[in-house]
């Protein structure tokens, strides 16, 4: 852990609104080393995007109240000056967004936009920047990069736009790359290409990657570690093996059970999580998941009053749940039987 590139500890991001305080992120902590990938999974409104925007310093100028620590390579980002964060953004950390069409400028050629990102952080001539842009486009697998660099975003297909976004994000060789739902807008066959590209690029650049998605399949493809978020809080954190082979939180069980899967026998009936995700203004008291949790009764009412602390259930595997390990084993056994049935 000595080589941690990114250290987030006790991060809170709250937004005051007329209706009340929105606790979008409430006490998130994790560390990320170079060359590793963290997957953040959660449903809409679980705070996964807000955390990543917080790391990128993109809440500055909004009403967001950020407390806690975000340390990038030892440098504190919470409370850092806008100018300093701006310097880091693009050069040391970069981000890929969900919708490549709305994150590329329609009036500038793709090559010019990538060159601009490079020019901002490097003292080079425009010609050098353009050469670099073409080089980057070639690396992310765009055919004939020298001609395609002069195309406008609308002339690119969805997959190629996302490749161009990746080229732009990687143009300054960032140490941290955040991909926020990078493949949600793409078709499956193109999604597979982009996931392979992110994987290959990470191998090549040895950067740390955070991939944010609601799709457990996408997370499994890329992640070393996984953080499951629910209502702005950490529900579970562990290695990919921990999360998929021995998940410890009832919400993770629910997510894994509720999705139809191609790699397993077809179930006659899906097992959904009951209810709907809570509003972030009125997060349920105690464990935020308790109104939807089928094991809430087993905690003798603690789940309704007491916020569960993140406790280790194995090396590096943290779970925020009141269930004792015996209860968990029994419940999980029941869930496994359900799967077999």
């Amino acid at each position, binding site marked *: 852990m000595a080589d941690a590139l990114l250290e987030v500890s006790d991060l809170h991001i709250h937004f005051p609104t007329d209706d009340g305080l929105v606790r979008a992120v409430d006490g998130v902590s994790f560390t990320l080393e170079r060359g590793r990938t963290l997957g953040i999974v959660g*449903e*809409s409104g679980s705070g996964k995007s807000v955390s990543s925007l917080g790391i990128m310093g993109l809440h500055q100028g909004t009403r967001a109240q950020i407390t806690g620590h975000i340390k990038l390579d030892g440098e504190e980002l919470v409370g850092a000056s806008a100018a300093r964060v701006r310097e880091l953004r693009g050069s040391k950390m970069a981000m890929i967004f969900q919708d490549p069409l709305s994150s590329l400028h329609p009036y500038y050629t793709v090559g010019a936009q990538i060159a601009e990102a490079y020019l901002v952080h490097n003292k080079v001539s425009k010609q050098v920047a353009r050469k670099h842009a073409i080089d980057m486009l070639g690396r992310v697998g765009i055919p004939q990069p020298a001609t395609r660099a002069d195309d406008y975003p609308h002339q690119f*297909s*969805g*997959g*190629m736009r996302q490749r161009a976004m990746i080229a732009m994000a990687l143009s300054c060789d960032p140490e941290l790359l955040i991909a926020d739902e990078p493949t949600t807008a793409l*078709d*499956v*066959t*193109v*999604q*597979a*290409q982009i*996931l*392979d590209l992110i*994987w290959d690029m990470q191998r090549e650049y040895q950067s740390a990657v955070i991939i944010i998605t*609601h*799709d*457990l*399949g*996408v*997370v*499994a*493809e*890329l992640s070393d570690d996984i953080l499951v978020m629910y209502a702005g809080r950490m529900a579970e954190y562990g*290695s*990919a*093996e921990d*999360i*998929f*082979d021995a998940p410890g939180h009832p919400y993770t069980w*629910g*997510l*894994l059970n*509720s*999705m*139809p*899967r*191609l*790699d*397993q*026998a*077809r*179930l006659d*009936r*899906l*097992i*959904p*999580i*009951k209810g*709907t*995700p809570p509003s972030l203004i009125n997060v349920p008291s105690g464990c935020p998941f308790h109104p939807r949790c089928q094991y809430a009764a087993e905690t003798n009412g603690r789940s309704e009053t007491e916020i569960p602390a993140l406790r280790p259930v194995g090396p590096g595997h943290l779970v925020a749940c009141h269930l004792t390990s015996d209860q968990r084993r029994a419940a999980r056994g029941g869930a496994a039987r359900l799967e077999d049935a």
Partner: protein
Amino acid sequence: MSGDALLEVTGLTKHFPVTRGIIIRQKIGAVQAVDDVSFTLAAGQTLGVVGESGCGKTTTGRLLTRLLEPTGGQIMFDGRDISHLSAGQMRPLRRDIQMIFQDPYSSLNPRHTVGSIVGAPLRLQKVSTPHGIKAAVQDLLQLVGLNPEHYNRYPHEFSGGQRQRIGIARTLALRPKLIVADEPVSALDVSIQAQIINLLEDLQGELGLTYVVIAHDLSVVRHIADLVAVMYLGKLVELTSRDELYARPRHPYTVALMSAVPVPAPVRGEEGRQRRKRIRLAGDVPSPLNPPPACRFHTRCWKAQEICRTTEPPLAELDPGHQVACHFPENGAPEDSAPDGGAATGTSQAAGELS
């Protein structure tokens, strides 16, 4: 199967003209959105239509509900040819054919209450309801798992999953025989998707509905469909029963599509990564304005040979009830389709041999 076929589609084709010029309009081409699609769907069954964006699955759905008029081919619904009925002639049939839309946010009028949204079909079709429209709507809300007391609420007061339930209640108001659901769960969160899928299945059992479910998610289709049609660039490339398709996919496109679905299980080491790499289709789906000649998949297919560029493969019945349009179909041998995703591994070897 054809004995009690509710829906019989033969040679269904839809071309959208592309024109140039404002004063003198010239037709300069056509988007071949749907080309020669045929299938038969028995009452009480579910047809799943899968494919990537631009493959014509949504257009097919709109043709079946006659929101669009086909350029060619025939749609027989309940023994009646509905392919070229006028809007007026269609109106009485709208009771029998209904649609569920993808986006629960844009498909409900924000200025209308739930009661008036769900009751609208009853009023439009002048259905006589024994205890009044309000009671009928409240029954419908109950049926789809909503609180009947929410009759007077507006759509914005509901979550995405609840809105989709409202859309389903509206669809069911007229007790249709056929429901075309266009991506019914793709806008919903994972934990809510399962709720809606279960609801659709329960309603099918309870009311004897026939579904056409259009989806890009192969795992959702596998769960809900009895019969699956795989489309690529407007063409039907494979059509067979669900179990057959997922156990023995024969068209290379279907195989590639299945292998592209990310598996929610951890990748173990470099070896696991290689195993996962499977078949990757290069590039994107070509434009339907100018589809590749002959087999439309040949530009991305790893098995393509000269004949694929010159002769279009017909949709042929390779096994009983298993239609495939390919010159070089996968053999579909059982050892290729071990439950651990062996089908994909088998073909990735084939891909490796070629490269």
